[in-house]
């Protein structure tokens, strides 16, 4: 069985800073890491792989620095890593990204299962997984929070969507996206980490994927979505007010505040 895990390199969101004036993420302000949901995807793949003797391939799209995330995935147990990297891929939105990753998957070929995180913590769209399944014309289940049963032919999972819990069975090949509740990702052993630092990562550019892609589908050209600006919501601060003796005025004031904030309907 061959399992492909989709991995994105993201800024370390606990350290990254936002430039509120320019409305952009200052990516240089923090280190990078594997998108945390993708670590859950990788752990799911490793657990399946351990019981089915599967080959686990990590696939990513991004700058050369994303090789670091792929090596981290290899340290945690993936067998092989492939990076899709080309100037032509730059500026891709959800659609162009999905199309490009699909080309990579087609080039890998003969897959049984694709696993992705439910969303990335920097983009937050949660659409790439489902779009890839749609393009590949394979069934998919999103927001999987439990792996109930699996074998080389099918998966039975619990999926949590819109406050509903669904028990779903899917025939392979298929794609699932997983939530953070599905497992706790393992840490890499130090030995594997050191070995993986020297691991070779296969890099495919447009020329390698030409068979499955048209140039018009890539990067800015292939992206109907344009992000004009990122707005950082202002932090809400607590406010306090004190009334002395004039309690009826205080009550009127409070009712007014509650009505204004739509806490009370009076």
């Amino acid at each position: 069985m061959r399992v492909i895990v989709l991995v994105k390199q993201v800024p370390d969101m606990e350290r990254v800073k936002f430039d509120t004036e320019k409305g952009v993420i200052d990516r240089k302000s923090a280190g990078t890491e594997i998108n945390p949901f993708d670590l859950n995807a990788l752990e799911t793949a490793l657990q399946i792989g351990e019981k089915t003797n599967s080959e686990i391939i990590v696939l990513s799209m991004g700058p050369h620095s994303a090789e670091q995330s792929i090596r981290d995935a290899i340290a945690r147990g993936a067998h092989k890593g492939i990076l899709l990297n080309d100037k032509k891929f730059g500026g891709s939105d959800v659609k162009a990204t999905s199309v490009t990753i699909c080309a990579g998957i087609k080039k890998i070929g003969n897959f049984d299962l694709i696993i992705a995180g439910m969303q990335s913590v920097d983009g937050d769209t949660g659409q790439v997984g489902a779009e890839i399944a749609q393009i590949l014309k394979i069934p998919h289940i999103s927001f999987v929070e439990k792996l109930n049963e699996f074998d080389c032919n099918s998966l039975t999972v619990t999926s949590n969507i819109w406050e509903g819990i669904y028990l779903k069975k899917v025939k392979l090949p298929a794609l699932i996206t997983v939530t953070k509740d599905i497992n706790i990702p393992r840490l890499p052993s130090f030995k594997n980490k050191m070995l993986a630092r020297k691991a070779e990562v296969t890099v495919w550019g447009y020329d390698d994927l030409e068979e499955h892609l048209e140039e018009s589908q890539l990067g800015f050209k292939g992206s109907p979505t344009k992000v004009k600006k990122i707005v950082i919501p202002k932090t809400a601060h607590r406010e306090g007010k004190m009334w002395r003796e004039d309690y009826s005025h205080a009550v009127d004031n409070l009712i007014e505040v509650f009505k204004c904030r739509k806490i009370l309907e009076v």
Partner: protein
Amino acid sequence: MNIEVINKMKEIAGEDWVLSDLSQMAGYLYDETEPTIRPKANEDCIVVKPQNALEISEIIKYANEKSISVVPRGGGTGLSGAAIPLTPSIIISLERLNNTIEIDEENLMVTVDCGVTLAALIEKIDKHESLFLPVHSGDDGAQIGGLVVENAGGVRAVKHGIVRNHVKGLEVVLPTGEIVQMGGKLLKNNMGYDLMHLMIGSEGTLGIVTKVIFKLYSKMSNTMTLIASFDNNKDAASVVPRILQQGITPLAAEYLDKINIEKISEHTGLKWPLQDGNAFLIFILDGESEDELFGKSERIAEACESYNALECVIAESSKEQRAILEFRSKVYPAFCDELVETLDIAVAPSLIPDIIDDLTEIAKKYNTITPICGHVGDGNIHNMILRVNGEKPPYFEEIKLEMLQTAMKYGGTVTAEHGTGKIKKKYMGLQYSDREIEIMKGIKRVFDPHNILCPGNIFDN
């Protein structure tokens, strides 16, 4: 409490900042000292919340005039009963002195009001790109004044030391009411005796710290956390001095035994990253570059391997590293319902394997266990004396004394972090001669001639 005292406190601090009703005061009478060993608080107290050092000074002068005890109180996270009033007292809660956090980038220092919590201070410093304060006392609700007068330790002390090593200056209200500045933004100061270092760790007996100047450090751009598992505690404890000897100084070198791991997992539902092993070491490293850290980590991993480590894993992302530190921080909450007391013995770091062996043997003799964790890089361990059927066991005093005597045998200390307070004062004679204790009492008399500040801490009245 006498109505005259209540009115005076309202006059000084304002009506809104005085509590005299027991139901409102209850939360101010105890700290985090285990209920099984803490003394009963005197309930004939009044809580006052002054807003600055001047108001504190007025309260202190009044207390001297009327011979009323004063007990200052920070976040109430202490473990030695120092904030528990034993006599009718004015409890000064310092929570309103929390406005100032001034970072001085030029001199690498920060000036902080005593009522600022450690969490608020760390949050502010963390926003700074290049500065760092290596204090992690285990409870972020602790207030700065309390951290200083208790000379807190915690993890991350291996590389930069404990709170004493970071303090450069203090503003203090003396027990006689004067407001004095001790130290300052100075790296050298040899004028007269060093009263500032006498104040640090004085457990509220020599003055009320109202402002603190801490030294700041340059923030390293990279951190890594390693965990190694071992079959036995001897191997785990023995490797740490070997690593330090190689010139590798981690921010933290922490030890946890399997009993701790199982209990924390059961209590919190958190998962420990390693499956096998009976003893575990956590190393937190910081450095300028990833390569530097991998180099140091490799040497640590090799050293662990030479001491029969079973496995060694690494965490690099902030989230994964924080999860490990959080797990470590849950030791006390996980055990708090089963504890009689957590001791905090320290010995020379190289003697840690011996004292762990001795403590384990003592526990066996009493047909019990003593879960052990600690800051092994500092030679400081926390071993627990557990309840039996929910109660303090009849052998409690005996086993505790035996464990403390063992620390003395190795030239150690009764308390490395928690302080003497009211809980350990009866063991002063174990560690100090009569003459030494008499000198300490003399110092107290010079600072506080009417013995109004924290009576019953460190010595009996």
